[in-house]
C-alpha cells in the first residue's frame, strides 16, 4: 500500500442499474445478505468487493449527462490510434491487423533486461560476418550472441524475420515439401492422404511456421468469403465460427469446400494439439544435458521466458522482442455513450479535445495529521485520540454545501471510533484568485460559526479552534475540518482474549480505513445551448447534488503504548509482509502523551459524539437561515 494517508473514492457503478442491469446488482446483494451489519448502507472498505470500486480521484472521470462519477470500469475504451512507444511513429490500424501489434521498424527490446536495443556497428574483431548488431546498452546483450547480425542498419524487422526463418526451415524442408501449396496447410489430415501425420508435422514445424500456416489458412477462408478484408462482417464471422465447429465436431457444414475440410468425417478429424508446449524435439535427457552444459546462467528466468512467444528455456534461444505498440484511447460513458475523454490523434501531443475528469466536478479531499510530530502514520497509538485535518477543496465555480457522514465505528472486526467535528459546512466557489484578495480586504472577523458567508466574500479564515461544530480553517475554495479517531486495541496474535473466532489478525485489520460519505449540494446555472435564456435576464438555477463514498486510509495501528515491547514481536511476521515497514518512533509509544494539537481539548471530543456535532452544526445552519 502506498504511504499514508490515502484517499480513494468509491465509484457507484457497482450498484448502478443503468450500466450492468441484472448481474451486478444481484451480486451486490449477496454480501449484504451475509453480513447484516452492512445493510445500513455503510461502505465497508475492508470488504473484498470494495477493492474494485475504489480509485484515487485522479483516475476518475465524470459524465456530465449522467451527473455521475465514471471509473475505469464503467467507461468504454475506444482506440484512437496505435503508435510505437519507442520510435513514436503512428501505425495505421490496417497495418496492426496485418502485421500484428508490434513495431515493424527497428524497435526491439532486450530479451535479457527489457531495455530498448540499439543498432550498433559490430566490432571488426568479432566473428560476425555482417556489420551491424542489435546491442543492449544496459546489459550488453547483443544479437551476435544468438548468431544474428544485420547487413544494413535499417528495416531490422524484415532482416530478422528472414534470418530467424531460414535456419529453422532447412531441416523441415523435406517434410514441408508435401505442403507445397500454402493454402492447404494447417489441417493437413483433412487435405490429402499423402500428408504426414500430425505428430511428425509438429516436430518439424517451428511456431512461426505453424503460425504462418494458420494465417494463410484464415486468409484463404477470408478470400473464400469474399466480403470484407478483415473478416469483421457477420458473414465472415459465422464462417470462422463454423470452421471451428465443423473441424471439431465433424459436422457436415459445407463451408470451405475448396479445401475439402467439410468432407472429412469424425474419424479423420485431427486431434486437438497444444502447440504452446515445450519444443517436443527435446526429450528430457537432452534437456538435462543441455542444462548441464550451459549452467544456470544459460537458462532463462521465468520473466524472460514468459515474455517470449516461444517460451525458450535457454538464453541461446532468446530473440529480440519487437516493441509492443501502445494506443491512445478515447473513453465513453457506458450508460449514455457520451464521450468523456478524447485525446488529440497526433501521437506526440498530450492535449485532449474532450477531458471530463472528476477532479473538475467533485471536491477533492486531502487529509493530514494535525500534529505530524506527535505520531507517525505507520504507528497510530491504540485507544488514543488522533486528530486529522480533512480539507475539502471545491473545483466548481459555485459555492458548495458539504455534508460528511461517517459511521461512528468503522466496519470490520476492530472498529475505529470516528468523529467528524464539523460534518456540515460550506466551501467557497473556485473563483478568481483576485476575488479572494478583494474579499479579504473587506473581511470581517465574525463569530466563529461553522458556516458563514457565501459567494466567495467575507470568508472567515484561520480560527483554528477545533471546537465541535466549527470548521478548523477555510480559504477561498477550501475548508478544513477536524476528524478525530480512536484506533482500537488489536490483541496480540496468539493472545488469549478477544481474538474473535479463529481468524488470524491480518494486516488489513491494522490499517485504519474510514469510510466517509460525502454529500455535495450546490446551485448552478443551467447550461442552455440556446441564447434565449441568456437574453431573458436572470439565469436559471438548478440544484444539484452528488453523494459518494470516500475511503480515507489514515494509517496503521501500532503497538499499544504501555505494553511490553516483546509482545509486539509476535506480529512481526505480518508486519514484514507489508511493503511499508512500520517505523515506530519511540515517542509515539507513550500513552500519556496527549496527542491533541494546540487548543484542542480532549473533552471537546469526549462528550459529543457525532450526533452532537451534527446537532450543533444543524443549529448553526438554522441560525444562519433565520
Amino acid at each position, binding site marked *: 500500500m502506498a504511504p499514508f494517508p490515502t484517499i480513494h473514492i468509491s465509484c457507484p457503478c457497482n450498484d448502478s442499474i443503468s450500466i450492468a442491469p441484472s448481474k451486478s446488482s444481484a451480486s451486490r446483494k449477496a454480501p449484504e445478505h451475509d453480513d447484516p451489519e452492512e445493510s445500513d448502507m455503510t461502505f465497508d472498505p475492508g470488504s473484498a468487493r470494495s477493492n474494485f470500486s475504489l480509485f484515487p480521484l485522479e483516475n476518475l472521470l465524470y459524465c456530465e449527462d449522467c451527473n455521475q462519477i465514471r471509473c475505469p470500469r464503467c467507461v468504454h475504451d475506444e482506440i484512437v490510434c496505435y503508435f510505437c512507444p519507442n520510435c513514436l511513429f503512428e501505425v495505421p490500424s490496417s497495418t496492426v491487423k496485418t502485421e500484428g501489434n508490434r513495431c515493424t521498424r527497428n524497435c526491439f527490446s532486450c530479451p535479457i533486461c527489457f531495455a530498448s536495443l540499439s543498432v550498433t556497428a559490430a566490432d571488426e574483431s568479432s566473428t560476425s560476418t555482417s556489420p551491424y548488431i542489435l*546491442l543492449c546498452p544496459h546489459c550488453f546483450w547483443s544479437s551476435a550472441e544468438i548468431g544474428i547480425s544485420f547487413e544494413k542498419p535499417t528495416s531490422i524487422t524484415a532482416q530478422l524475420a528472414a534470418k530467424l526463418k531460414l535456419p529453422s526451415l532447412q531441416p523441415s524442408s523435406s517434410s514441408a515439401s508435401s505442403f507445397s501449396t500454402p493454402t492447404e496447410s494447417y489441417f493437413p489430415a483433412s487435405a490429402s492422404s499423402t500428408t504426414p501425420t500430425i505428430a511428425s508435422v509438429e516436430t518439424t514445424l517451428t511456431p512461426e511456421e505453424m503460425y504462418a500456416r494458420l494465417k494463410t489458412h484464415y486468409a484463404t477462408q477470408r478470400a473464400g468469403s469474399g466480403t470484407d478484408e478483415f473478416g469483421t462482417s457477420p458473414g465472415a464471422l459465422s464462417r470462422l465460427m463454423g470452421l471451428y465447429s465443423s473441424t471439431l465436431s465433424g459436422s457436415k457444414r459445407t463451408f470451405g469446400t475448396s479445401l475439402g475440410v467439410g468432407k472429412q468425417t469424425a474419424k479423420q478429424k485431427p486431434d486437438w494439439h497444444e502447440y504452446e508446449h515445450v519444443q517436443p524435439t527435446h526429450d528430457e535427457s537432452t534437456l538435462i544435458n543441455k542444462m548441464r552444459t550451459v549452467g544456470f546462467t544459460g537458462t532463462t528466468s521465468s520473466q524472460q521466458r514468459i515474455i517470449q512467444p516461444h517460451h525458450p528455456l535457454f538464453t541461446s534461444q532468446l530473440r529480440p522482442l519487437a516493441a509492443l505498440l501502445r494506443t491512445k484511447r478515447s473513453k465513453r460513458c457506458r450508460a449514455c455513450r457520451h464521450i468523456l475523454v478524447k485525446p488529440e490523434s497526433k501521437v506526440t501531443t498530450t492535449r485532449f479535445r474532450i477531458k471530463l475528469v472528476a477532479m473538475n466536478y467533485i471536491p477533492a479531499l486531502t487529509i493530514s495529521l494535525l500534529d505530524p510530530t506527535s505520531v507517525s502514520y505507520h504507528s497510530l497509538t491504540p485507544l488514543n485520540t488522533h486528530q486529522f485535518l480533512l480539507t475539502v477543496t471545491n473545483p466548481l465555480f459555485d459555492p458548495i454545501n458539504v455534508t460528511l457522514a461517517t459511521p461512528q465505528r468503522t466496519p470490520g472486526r476492530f472498529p475505529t471510533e470516528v468523529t467528524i467535528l464539523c460534518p456540515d459546512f460550506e466551501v467557497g466557489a473556485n473563483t478568481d484568485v483576485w476575488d479572494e484578495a478583494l474579499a479579504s480586504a473587506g473581511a470581517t472577523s465574525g463569530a466563529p460559526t461553522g458556516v458563514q458567508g457565501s459567494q466567495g466574500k467575507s470568508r472567515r479564515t484561520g480560527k483554528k479552534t477545533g471546537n465541535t461544530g466549527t470548521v478548523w480553517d477555510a480559504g477561498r475554495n477550501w475548508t478544513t475540518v477536524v476528524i478525530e479517531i480512536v484506533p482500537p486495541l488489536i490483541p496480540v496474535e496468539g493472545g488469549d482474549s478477544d481474538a474473535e473466532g479463529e481468524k488470524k489478525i491480518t494486516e488489513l485489520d491494522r490499517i485504519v480505513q474510514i469510510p466517509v460519505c460525502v454529500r455535495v449540494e450546490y446551485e448552478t446555472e443551467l447550461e442552455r445551448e440556446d441564447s434565449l435564456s441568456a437574453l431573458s435576464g436572470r439565469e436559471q438555477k438548478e440544484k444539484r447534488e452528488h453523494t459518494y463514498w470516500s475511503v480515507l486510509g489514515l494509517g496503521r495501528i501500532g503497538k499499544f503504548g504501555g505494553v511490553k515491547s516483546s509482545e509486539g514481536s509476535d506480529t512481526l511476521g505480518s508486519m514484514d509482509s507489508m511493503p511499508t515497514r512500520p517505523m515506530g518512533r519511540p515517542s509515539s509509544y507513550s500513552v500519556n502523551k496527549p496527542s491533541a494539537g494546540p487548543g484542542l481539548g480532549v473533552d471537546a471530543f469526549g462528550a459529543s459524539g457525532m450526533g452532537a456535532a451534527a446537532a450543533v452544526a444543524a443549529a448553526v445552519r438554522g441560525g444562519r437561515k433565520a
Partner: protein
Amino acid sequence: MPPRSRISVEVAKPPVDFAPSIVVAETASLAGTHRIRIAANTVIHPRAKLNSALGPITIGRHCIISERTQITAPDSQGLTIGDGVVVEVNAVVEAREVGEGTAVEVGVRIGKGAVVGKNCKLSPLTRVADAEVIPDNTVLYGAGERRVDASGTAGARRKLLERHVDSLRVLIPSNASKWMS
C-alpha cells in the same frame, strides 16, 4: 555564478606523478599523503575527489573520472585503476583494482578491497561488496544480476572512449600544474 574554490580548506596536497597530457580540472580535489599517479590522456572532471590518505592511487591511460566521484585507496596496498576506465557521476570506488576497459556507471559503489576485472560494466546504482572479485567481462545490471558480456564490443567501446577524452580535453581547462609543486 562562478564556482567558488573550496580547495584551500582541503588537507595538504598529496605527492603526485602526472603524465604531461592529462586534464585535471581546477576544482577537482586530490587529498591524502600517498602518491597519486595519473597516466597519459586521463581526464579528471571538476569536483571529483581522490583521496590517498591510506594508500597510493594509480590511474591508467585514457580514463575519465567524472564529477562527484570518490576515489579512495582502501589501504596501504593502494588502488589501481587500469587503462580506459570510466568512472561516472556519484560513483564511490574503494577497490583494490579496477581492470582495464571497465565502465563504472552512475552511483555505483565498489566496496573496500574489491577487485574488478577487465572490460566489466557496472550498471548504474549497482554495488560491489567489500573484497569481492568480479571476473573479466562481467556485466552487473538490473537489481544486481550478473552476466558475461559476449557482445565483443569492448574494442569499439575503447575507441569511443578515446574520442570522448579528446573532446573533453577541449572543454575542461586543466590545471595540473597546481598539484605539481
